[in-house]
Each structure stands twice: as structure tokens, then as C-alpha cells.
């Protein structure tokens, strides 16, 4: 059985500014096998973060279904967990208690939650920082906590919303490798949204390329690079050819829309 199935997802909403209807996503259909790592790339404002919100159950689709393990999704559930774009750590909670927050929401008792959080702190490489507060952590470390918090609920499906977008280039590379290491130990199914094409290729089994306004699947690309991936692969000619190919898809399929409206559209829909 497929781990995740998206069936003809459409999303429209009325624009507060123009009063008209904006179509954000049209007939988006794809599926993920268990243990698969799939990325979604596309130009900004193409609705990729919105798609993630729909799959998480935060936002209802106008039409279409999301199925996880064959069951239709209508609200957030413990089978899915989101790693947010900004780390969104609670500043008044230590690393340990930021991680247990997700477990508290699911009524896991305190001792078990703490034990699990301690294990995860080790897994994401934050030994010794259990009692640190978010302001004491670097951006990369905050994203490690963000990842650990999502993993804590032992989700079937990990949804990642441009988690490394705010990091500097070096830290991002480190975090990509770290993510692959964690993925290989936990065997999670991952849906990873990014606007960085090289990141998508490096991490994924398949890359879903979305076009913009309305967001539609332009193509699903299979990089076919061997695993485990190494940073060196980013310099292979095949890798560059893949970047060229996806870049071409993103460029040609993106109509020349008003960029201001684009940005507003994505914010409106993602904010719900």
C-alpha cells in the first residue's frame, strides 16, 4: 500500500484584495511509497507550502483527497508531523521541553516523553544541549530541535517545509547530510518542500516539480543517484544535468505572473 496518496487536490480561495478567486493548486496527484524520500520544488508562490499544509490537515482542500495508509485525512494526526520553515521553537522552553511539546499534545506521559526526547537529542546530535534555551542555539541547531520535535511523535510521514531555507550555505550542507543520516536510521517516509533544486536532487528518490499559478505537477523527476549519497555527488556531471533539467521545467512552466500578487497569494493560503 502507498504511504501517502494525494488525489486531484485543488485549492482556490478568494483574494481579500481583489475580491476575485485565486486558484492556488490544480489537480495535484502523486503518491509516496513507504520509506521513500520525495521532494517538491517549484517557483515561490506555486503553492508547495500550501500543499504541505493540506497534507498535514491544517488546511482543507477545495476538492480532492489526501490518504495516509489508505485512510482519508481531514485534520492533523499523529501519523504525520511537520518540520516548520522557521524553527518555531517555543522560546520559553528548553531544548528538551521543546521536543516533549509534541508528545504532550498527544498526551504521552511525562517520563516516557522525557526518555524519548533524550534519545532524539542524541539522534540529532545535540548531546549536552538538553537544557539550553532556543536563543542560545545557532540556526542549524534550532532546526535539529525542530526535526527532533517532529520525530518524537513517531510519525509515519515526515512533512518538511523548507526547513533549511534560512540557514547559511555551509550549515545547510551539514544539515542535509544529517537529515539523510537520520532518515536512514529511522526509515521514515519524507515529503520535503524546498525551492533549492540541488537540495531536492541530493536528498530525494523522486522530485516533484510544480509549476506556478495554479500549482500543477509539471513533471516528476527520478534522480537515480546511488545511496548513500555523498556531498561529492553534487559535483558529478549527472547532478548538474539534473539541475539543468529541473531548472528548465521550473522556468518554462512558470507564467509571467505579477510577483507581488504571487507572494501575497502564498502567504494568504499558508497562513490559514
Amino acid at each position, binding site marked *: 500500500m502507498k504511504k501517502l496518496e494525494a488525489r486531484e487536490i485543488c485549492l482556490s480561495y478568494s483574494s481579500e484584495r481583489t475580491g476575485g478567486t485565486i486558484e492556488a493548486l490544480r489537480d495535484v496527484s502523486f503518491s509516496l511509497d513507504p520509506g521513500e524520500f520525495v521532494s517538491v520544488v517549484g517557483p515561490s508562490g506555486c503553492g508547495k507550502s500550501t500543499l504541505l499544509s493540506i497534507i498535514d490537515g491544517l488546511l482543507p482542500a477545495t476538492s480532492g483527497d489526501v490518504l495516509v495508509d489508505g485512510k482519508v485525512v481531514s485534520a492533523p494526526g499523529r501519523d504525520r508531523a511537520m518540520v*516548520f520553515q522557521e524553527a518555531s521553537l517555543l522560546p*520559553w522552553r528548553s531544548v528538551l521541553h521543546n521536543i516533549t511539546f509534541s508528545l*504532550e499534545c498527544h498526551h504521552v506521559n511525562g517520563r516516557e516523553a522525557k526518555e524519548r526526547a533524550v534519545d532524539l537529542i542524541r539522534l540529532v546530535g545535540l548531546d549536552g544541549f538538553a537544557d539550553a*534555551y532556543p536563543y542560545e542555539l545557532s540556526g542549524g541547531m534550532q532546526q535539529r530541535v525542530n526535526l527532533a520535535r517532529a520525530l518524537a511523535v513517531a510519525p509515519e510521514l515526515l512533512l518538511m517545509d523548507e526547513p533549511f531555507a534560512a540557514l547559511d550555505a555551509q550549515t545547510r550542507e551539514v544539515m542535509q547530510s544529517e537529515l539523510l543520516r537520520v532518515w536512514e536510521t529511522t526509515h521514515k517516509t519524507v515529503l520535503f518542500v524546498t525551492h533549492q533544486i540541488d537540495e531536492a536532487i541530493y536528498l530525494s528518490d523522486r522530485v516533484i516539480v510544480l509549476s506556478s499559478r495554479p500549482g500543477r505537477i509539471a513533471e516528476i523527476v527520478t534522480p537515480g543517484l546511488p545511496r548513500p549519497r555523498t556531498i561529492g555527488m553534487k559535483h558529478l556531471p549527472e547532478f548538474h544535468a539534473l539541475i539543468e533539467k529541473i531548472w528548465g521545467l521550473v522556468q518554462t512552466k512558470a507564467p509571467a505572473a505579477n510577483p507581488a500578487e504571487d507572494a501575497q497569494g502564498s502567504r494568504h493560503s499558508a497562513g490559514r
Partner: protein
Amino acid sequence: MSVQNPAITTPWSPGLFRSSQRALIGFLSVATGLLIWEAVIRLKLVSPLFLSSPSAIFEAFWELTSSGELQTHAWVSFREFAVGLSLAILFGLPISILAGWSKRLGWVLQPLVSGVYAAPTVALFPLIIIFLGIGFWDKVLLVFVSGFLQLFIAITAGIRATDERWVRLARSFGASQSKLFWSIILPGALPFIMLGIRLAFGRSLVNVVVAEMLAAEQGLGYMIAYYGNTFKIANVFVALGVVAVLGVIFDQIFLLAERRLFRWRPPVS
């Protein structure tokens, strides 16, 4: 990847040196001010009738405390203040939190509060006297009203300023409404709640003194008005000094409490 270590304070660390240096400079500044003041009076540059001198004020303080007069008045003011502010917090805290949390309750209360808040609360005092007469409860009510308004304004704003990302996070993890309230909304608004209490405190202290100056037979405000009218300037300064010291002491307690509550915030140097 590095972590900014919280400052480690050993007896000889620069941090401690700096803070003791700061205290010393502050002390010297006050002492110099007092000396200049004393000198100005001794050299008869200003008549002691208008501006008493530190030595005369100290003498007056001694007299007023040994007769017990100062303590009696201070105790009266303190009781009015403490009862009024406690009631303001007791009612203001839950009502403001609810008004920030529930949109509809906010719509009901917000215009009422804004209307009253726009007027200086002391202006309500004549009205309050008509209701309650001159005594203890009229001051309590004035303090209650001003404290309540201050809390309401700060706390409702704080609750409404809750970061959307945190709400989204809680929803994504399937948090219940009560979990959202206790783990996101309330801790997020805590700095505003503390600020509200601190502002309410300052307003209440001022209002007690002003109310006693307007209509009272006891209290520090009464002392200030009475001795001012009888040109006993030293006694006025004693009463003023007690008010100021009370304000400073409570402010320090607040700062200490904030430092303990908000250890999660980056330290401000």
C-alpha cells in the same frame, strides 16, 4: 556550530566588577547631589522655607518616626494601595486574559475600557467620593479602577500578539484548546502580564497619593498636602521620600521576579 555560553560569574569576573562599579558610581552621584543641596541651603543661596535641606529632612524624619506619625500614615496608604491593587489583579488578570482569548468578549469590553482609559482616572475620584464617602474604600476603588484598566490594556494586547507560527505548530501537533491556552497563549503573554502588573503598580501608587491629597484625613498624600499648606517643607520631603522608596523597592522586586521568570530570554546588558 557554537553556543553562546551564559556569562559565568566568578567573584573576580568583569561582570561583577562592572556591576559593583555601577553601584559605586550611582551612590556617589546621589551623595554629591545631597552635598550640593545641603551647601546651597547652608550658604543661604535659597531660603530654607522653599527648599529644605537634607539635614533638616533627616531631623524631620527622626521626629516623625519617633512619634509614630509617619508609620501611621504610611500604613494607611499602604493598606489602600495593597487592597486596591490586589483586587485589581484578582479580577483584572482573569478578565483581561479571557477578553484577549475570546474575540467576542473582547469586542464587548474593549470599547468600554478604552473609553474609561482615555480619561485620567483621578478625574473619577469626585464621583467615587459621592458614592462611597471619604475614607478607606474610596481610595481602594480608585486604585482598583486604574489598576484594572492598566492590566486590561497590556494583557489583552499581549494575548492578541501571540505568534501565529506557535498557534500553527500547536494545531499541527493536534493540541487541544486547553493545551494551546496553557502552553502557548499564556506563557507567550507572560511578559505582557508582568508589564501590566508593573504599570498598574506605578499608577496605583500615584493615584493613592493624589486621592489622599484631594480628600483624606490620613495617609502619605494627606501628609504632603497638610505640611505643604503649613510650610513644613522638611515633613513634605519625608512623606515624598517614603513614597519614592516604596516605589523603588517594589520595582526592584518586580525586576528580580522577571529575571527569574524569563531566564529563557537573552540577557540584556
